[in-house]
C-alpha cells in the first residue's frame, strides 16, 4: 500500500489551486459572483469555477444573509459535498445578522448551524474583498487550518441540535414531503 501521506503537500497544493465553488448563491451577494467569475475579475485564473453539482464542489460561498428556508437547502447541499470542503461567509449578515438583525426570517449566527472557515466584511463585499477572502482560504488550506469540515464531523451533535431547534425535529422528512399533496392529480370538479 502506498503511503499517500507522502503526497499530501501535492494534494494540498492541488486543493488550494482548484477550488470549485458550488453554484448556490444564497443572498444578495450572489450579484457579485458573476463579475467575479467573468472576464473582469476572472476567478478561473486561480482554477476556481462554479460547479452546478455539489458533489464535485469544494468551496461553499454563503453569499449574504440566510433565511431559514434557504438554510435547510444549505445544510443539505453542504452535507452532499465530499470532504475536504470549505465554507466562506460573505458580508455582515451571516456573522451577526447584518441589516436584518431584527428580521424574523434571517439567520443571525450562521456558525451555529454549519461551520465556517473565513468571513469577510462588507455589504456587499467588493469582488476584491471576496478575492482577499479566497486568498485567505488558500493560505489556510496550505497551513492546514481550514478544518471546518473536521469540526462539523466532530461536533455534529451540537450542530444538529441547533438545526433541530430552529426547524423542529425531523425537518428533512417534512421538507421532502411538503409538496406531495399539491403534486397529486387534482380531482375533477
Amino acid at each position, binding site marked *: 500500500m502506498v503511503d499517500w501521506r507522502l503526497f499530501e503537500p501535492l494534494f494540498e497544493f492541488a486543493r488550494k489551486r482548484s477550488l470549485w465553488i458550488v453554484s448556490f448563491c444564497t443572498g444578495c451577494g450572489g450579484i457579485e459572483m458573476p463579475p467575479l467569475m467573468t472576464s473582469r475579475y476572472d476567478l478561473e485564473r486561480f482554477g476556481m469555477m462554479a460547479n452546478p453539482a455539489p458533489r464535485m464542489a469544494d468551496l461553499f460561498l454563503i453569499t449574504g444573509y440566510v433565511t431559514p428556508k434557504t438554510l435547510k437547502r444549505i445544510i443539505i447541499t453542504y452535507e452532499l459535498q465530499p470532504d475536504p470542503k470549505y465554507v466562506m461567509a460573505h458580508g455582515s449578515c451571516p456573522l451577526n445578522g447584518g441589516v436584518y438583525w431584527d428580521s424574523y426570517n434571517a439567520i443571525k449566527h450562521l456558525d451555529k448551524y454549519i461551520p465556517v472557515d473565513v468571513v469577510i466584511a462588507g455589504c456587499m463585499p467588493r469582488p476584491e474583498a471576496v478575492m482577499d477572502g479566497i486568498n485567505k482560504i488558500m493560505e489556510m488550506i496550505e497551513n492546514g487550518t481550514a478544518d471546518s469540515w473536521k469540526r462539523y464531523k466532530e461536533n455534529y451533535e451540537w450542530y444538529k441540535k441547533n438545526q433541530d431547534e430552529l426547524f423542529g425535529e425531523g425537518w428533512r422528512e417534512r421538507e421532502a414531503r411538503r409538496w406531495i399533496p399539491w*403534486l397529486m392529480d387534482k380531482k375533477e370538479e
Partner: protein
Amino acid sequence: MVAQSELIKEARENGMDLLPLDKDTYELFFGPQHMATENFSIILKMDGHRVVEAIANPGFLHRGFEKLAEFRPWHTNVALLLRVCVPESDVPETIYSMAVDEIIGWEVPERAQWIRTTVLEMARVSSYLFWIMGLSFKLGVYTAGQWAAAYRERLMALFEQLTGARVYHIYTIPGGVRRDIPSDRWLHQLKDTVEYIKSKLPDFDHLVFENYITFKRMEGIGVMNKKFALSEGVTGPNLRATGVPYDVRRADPYLLYPELDFEVPVLNEGDALARALIRRFELEQDLYILEQLLDMGPPSGPYQVSDPRLKNLPRFKVPAGDAFSHVESTKGDFGAYVVSDGKNKPYRVQIRGPSIAHGIRVLEHLLVGSRIADVPVILMSLDNCPPDIDR
C-alpha cells in the same frame, strides 16, 4: 371540486410516503441549488423531458422588509428597501423616495431630478447587460455573457464614483440625492462608457440576438397572448412583447421622462424571442436616453431640497398620508405604496415587484408542456427576479 385542504388532510392521515403520481411521471425539484434558478425553486412534474405541471416555490430570499421598514427612520429605509431588487437597486430607492416626496409635498430640485433619471437609466443599462449575461449563460453561448459582465463593470465603476458603492448605492433619498455629481470628468466618463457600450452592442447581436440557434431555441417558446398577459398583471417588456404599448415612463411620466425622446418597442408574438428582442431594443434606447441626458447636461442648483428638518434625520417626521409611485424597471412596473401616520417611521411600506406577477402564475402556466431545456430559457426570457417576489 374537492377542496385541496381535504386532500392534504387525507394525505397526512394516510401517512403518505410516495408520490401517488402516474407511473410515467416523476417529480423534479428545479432549484434553488441550480444554475438557472438562483434562489428560486420550481417543483416540476415531468413526463420524460416534458413538463406536465409546475409549481413555483418562492421565499428563499424573504427578509420581511415591509415589517423592518416600520422600525427604521424614513431616510434609513432607503438602505433597506433597495435590497428588494438586487440587480437594479436604484429602482426601489427611487420609488420609495418619490412616494415620500409626494406625501410631504416636496418639489425635488431639477438637478436632483436629472441625477435620478440618469441613475435610473444607468441602472437599466446595467441590468440589461446583466440580463444578457444570464440569457447567454442559460443558452450556452458563454462568450457574450462574459463580455456583458465585463462591460457592466464600467458602469459599476461610474456608480462607485457617483454614489460610493458598487451594487447597493443608497443614493436616492427622499428630497433628492445624497451626493452631488463628483466632477465634470464623471460626465465625460459616462459619455465614453455609453459610447463604448453602444459600440459593443453589435457583438451581442452577432452572438445572441442574430444567432440562428438562438432563434431555434427561443422561437415559439412560452407564448402568451395579450389578454392572458393583461389579466395576469404582467408588465414591462413581457407585456410589450404581447402587443400592449404600456411603458410607465410614458403612461405615467415621472422625473425628466416627458422631455426625453425614445421609442417604445412593441411586438405581437409574445414568445421568448420577442421578449428578448424587446429587451435588446430597449437597451439601445436606454443608451440613447443617456446620450440625451448628457447633451442636456445637469441643471445647476441644489441636489437636495433644503429643509431645516433634514438636519435631524432620526427625528424627521413625515405628515400623515399615503402615496403610490411606480417606475419602469427592466423587469416591469415597480411600485411602492407608502403610508405615514405622522411619526418618524413609516406606518406601512409595500413594494410591488413586477416578478410577483410574471414569476408565479405566468411561469407555472408557460412551463406546462415545455421541454426541460426550455425551462431556463423561459425563466430568463421573463427576467424573473426572485428577491422582488420574496421581498
